[in-house]
């Protein structure tokens, strides 16, 4: 049979951001997938060297348009470690609260994208409606829906008062009811199962070989979550379960993400119920002493790594950013092998792409 090359992207309805995937197919069977990145490469790793540590907060928040808060969290953690700053407990708790709200919003956004790409628009509408509640809480706290500017070196910039806490709790309770409905659909709706079960399965071995992280790795049975394994911010004071599944197919990844929303809702409540009193930030000096640091955090898509080196000035000498989408793109090349062309949208959506993150 003749082999054909099918380009998906850089501009394609399936992709929300530019990425070029070239599929080699024989009939309906995909044999191979090659990838080209860099369409939204902004040179952020170079730009940060020209800016002060405070200016970089605003730049690094824009590495990703979905998990913006976790980038500043990882960055601040690194700078605070070099400065040997103690962040007040209330600041850490509020930072963690935003991390978990962001996870809820990211997972619900992803569920909508997956549903739309497999032609199940109802769930797309419902999950994006529900996601608004998480965005409303974040907007109430910070004034921003997507770019929150909550983190600062030494703590956070915004505090919660009693009224805002009450409003947040009310929205969380309402959201939980809606997410139960979404879980019900994921577990029982045949339309979704037929399009995702057994599709794009990744083995534990493949996940290890490609160094995949986050829900994608946990869907294949890799029990790793930095919130538990290397607790940062306020996670050492909170209790939660790390959700894992087996099979590594799109359905397993869907279950992991929806079940993680429940864990995040519980984490948000734990933080609101036991919010420490006191200051929200410590004052940080402009210059950072010489040294290097590796800071890790669990973003909605998995491990984010920042390597940061200071030469003693007010600008970093080097910041290296590794976002979770990069190893996911490496793994998806194997997941796309030997599948039907009609399953390509489900598999590509299944990894929860963030191209701007991967390109930086």
């Amino acid at each position: 049979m003749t082999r054909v090359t099918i380009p998906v992207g850089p501009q394609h309805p399936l992709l929300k951001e530019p990425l070029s995937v070239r599929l080699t197919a024989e009939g309906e069977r995909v044999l191979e997938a090659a990838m080209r990145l860099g369409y939204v490469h902004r040179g952020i790793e170079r730009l940060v060297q020209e800016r002060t540590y405070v200016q970089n907060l605003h730049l690094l928040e824009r590495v990703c348009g979905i998990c913006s808060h976790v980038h500043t969290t990882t960055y601040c953690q690194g700078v605070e470690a070099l400065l040997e700053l103690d962040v007040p407990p209330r600041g850490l708790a509020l930072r963690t609260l935003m991390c978990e709200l962001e996870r809820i919003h990211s997972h619900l956004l992803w569920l909508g994208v997956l549903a739309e790409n497999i032609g199940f628009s109802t769930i797309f509408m419902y999950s994006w409606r529900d996601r608004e509640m998480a965005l409303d809480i974040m907007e109430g706290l910070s004034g921003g829906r997507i770019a929150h500017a909550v983190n600062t070196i030494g703590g956070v910039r915004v505090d919660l008062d009693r009224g805002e806490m009450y409003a947040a709790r009310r929205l969380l309770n309402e959201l939980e009811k809606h997410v139960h409905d979404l879980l019900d659909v994921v577990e029982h709706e045949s339309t979704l199962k037929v399009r995702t079960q057994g599709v794009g399965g990744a083995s534990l071995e493949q996940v290890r070989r490609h160094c995949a992280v986050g829900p994608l790795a946990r869907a294949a049975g890799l029990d790793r979550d930095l919130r538990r394994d290397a607790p940062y911010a306020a996670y050492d004071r909170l209790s939660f379960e790390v959700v894992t599944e087996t099979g590594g197919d799109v359905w397993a990844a869907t279950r992991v993400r929806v079940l993680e929303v429940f864990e995040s809702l519980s984490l948000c409540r734990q933080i609101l119920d036991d919010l420490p009193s006191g200051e929200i930030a410590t004052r940080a000096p402009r210059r950072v002493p010489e040294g290097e640091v590796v800071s890790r955090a669990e973003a909605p898509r998995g491990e984010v790594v920042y390597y940061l080196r200071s030469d003693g000035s007010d600008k970093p000498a080097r910041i290296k950013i590794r976002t979770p989408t990069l190893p996911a793109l490496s793994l998806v090349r194997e997941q796309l092998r030997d599948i039907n062309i009609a399953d390509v949208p489900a598999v590509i959506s299944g990894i929860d792409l963030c191209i701007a993150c991967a390109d930086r």
Partner: protein
Amino acid sequence: MEIETLLATLGEACPDYAFEARTIPVDETVIEIPAACLEDVVNVLRTTFSAYHLSTITGQDRGTELELLYHFWHERGITLRVALPREGARVRTLTETIPGADFYEREVGEMLGVTFEGHPGPEHLLLPEDWESEPPLRKAQQAEEGDP
């Protein structure tokens, strides 16, 4: 994983080199290794200590030399530091044993001008295919084209 045990096992794998570890925040162990030992050290990490996860590879220009940092993770962070000369920087690829290293190595290669020997597809990852200038993260480049 005990760092003393790791250093002892690495000493057996590469007997000509004395391995030393230091700790940087946040709880990351840094071990300096010669470029020639990289493959052996990574094999020991993977087979004896189950450290499968390569988080990323950081490349940076330290003025007199180029520095590669291989950030591994298994119960804790372990970073392998490899120093390379600025001219003709070459190091053996890890992509055969860790396919996930493919993208990381291509990025370091194009940004710093490091050649990864034996890499199956060393084309550009983020930069355009027709990029002909100096690697953008080299120091000389930054001095010439620094932001006003």
